[in-house]
């Protein structure tokens, strides 16, 4: 495949994958089991999700390592398996991709407030991100993808961790804008764009988010603040609601809705487009048709 950075710069839009967590939940992820823990015991569902996205047209898949930092894994008593889990996840993604898609190592938030709001320090954060990024990079990824961040400092810590672990690996970075057009920690899209530009990440943007509209608004503001930057849009499939009778959560955006937004994201400078919570291979297929 073409080098990911040159594709980002001048090739066709990169179609990224959709949700992993909600797909695994639908595939029977036992309650209380983390996707990372399941991956160790039973890699098939994870591999199936990757394959389904690639068959739907994804050019880029994210490893099943959103909760793959020590800070998250310790809740499922897997803190000593950070390296093994992250390496295994890359291997599974690589096998599923079979040279048809870029594999990027997924890095999610720590689930803790950093000091002074909480007790976890910035330096501790850098340390746990470095540990995860090291394992992902050593296993051989095409990039590292830091996502669903709300706190600018935590994003800085993650980027610093990635730089320390793997200075040459391309970095993708996205915030979740879910409150009045800002992150729940109050970060404005333009502020995020300026910071990420200064930290020299290769592409940045918005994922998750409250609604498609809010993510679109955030991407528009980032585009205004950084008109030449390759942007990322990886929103939820709209908003969740409960189908009461089936006791099942459904996200309300159809594949066609996501495709319509994908076209708008392209117009706003997005070079990587995919889905987050609630999206499925059907959504990604519609996005792929819309942008290629």
């Amino acid at each position, binding site marked *: 495949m073409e080098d990911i950075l040159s594709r980002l710069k001048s090739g066709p839009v990169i179609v990224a994958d959709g949700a992993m*967590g*909600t797909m695994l*939940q639908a595939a029977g*992820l036992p*309650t*209380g*089991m*983390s996707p990372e823990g399941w991956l160790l015991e039973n890699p098939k569902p994870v591999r199936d999700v990757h394959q389904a996205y690639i068959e739907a047209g994804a050019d880029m898949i994210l490893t099943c390592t959103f909760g793959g930092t020590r800070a*998250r894994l310790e*809740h*499922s008593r897997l803190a000593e398996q950070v390296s093994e889990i992250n390496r295994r996840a890359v291997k599974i993604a690589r096998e599923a991709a079979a040279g048809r898609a870029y594999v990027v190592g997924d890095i999610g938030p720590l*689930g*803790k*407030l950093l000091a002074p*709001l909480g007790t976890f320090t910035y330096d501790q954060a850098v340390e746990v991100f470095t540990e995860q990024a090291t394992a992902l990079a050593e296993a051989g990824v095409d990039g590292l993808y830091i996502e669903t961040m*709300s706190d600018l400092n935590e994003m800085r810590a993650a980027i610093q961790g990635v730089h320390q672990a793997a200075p040459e690996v391309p970095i993708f970075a996205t915030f979740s804008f879910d*409150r*009045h*057009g*800002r*992150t*729940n*920690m*109050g970060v404005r899209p333009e502020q995020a764009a300026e910071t990420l530009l200064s930290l020299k990440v290769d592409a940045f943007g918005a994922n998750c988010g409250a609604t498609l509209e809010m993510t679109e608004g955030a991407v528009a503001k980032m585009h205004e603040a950084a008109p030449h930057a390759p942007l990322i849009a990886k929103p939820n499939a709209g908003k*969740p*609601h*409960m189908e*009461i009778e089936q*006791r*099942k*959560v459904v996200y309300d955006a159809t594949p066609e809705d996501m495709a319509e937004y994908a076209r708008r994201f392209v117009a706003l400078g997005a070079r990587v487009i995919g889905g987050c919570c609630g999206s499925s291979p059907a959504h990604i297929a519609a996005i792929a048709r819309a942008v290629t």
Partner: protein
Amino acid sequence: MSEILKQLQEVVIAGESDQAQELAAQALEADIAPLTVIENALNPGMEIVGDRYECGEYFIPDLVMAAEAMKAAMRVLDPALKARQEQRQVLGTVVIGTVEGDIHEIGKSLVATMLSAAGFQVHDLGVDVPPVEFVKRVQETEANVVGLSALLTTTMLNQEAVIEALEEAGLREQVKVIIGGAPTGPEWAQTIDADAYAENANEAVERVKELLGV
């Protein structure tokens, strides 16, 4: 209102812990009763913080810092209350936790902090809390409110399991149950017979006050 109380309210709103502590001490030196300080500076300050959060002017860091400033002031006021054999009015007792199988912490802890700042006695059981633990702690604390957080489409079913466990233990009449977390919503609250749903920490305080009529 005295100038000191006005300033104290302002520094709580601004989340300045050191100044809040200092001004609370000044208020006591000026012979202002500790309960007056709470009712006329701290409580209204936190209400303004809640309003600003609601309208999108304030975000999580502002809530946390304001609650910290309030706590700093209370560290000065608590001994004074004790010395006068007075108590801050306790609005209710809340047992709160993230349900079994779910390790999401930030939202639940924020709700606990805001309820505590609003004058509730809060027992935070942490994350991944089994139903039996909620039941046990409700019995021990004679709580009148239970807060259940769930952030996953799978674990939200465990909010229902806690409500059933409370029923089986004969405690359901004693407590109001409030739920929250990203995939949940008012319809889900209704489905599982919870008494309320709150979208965020500020709303949680409002709903719990409504539920208890305080």
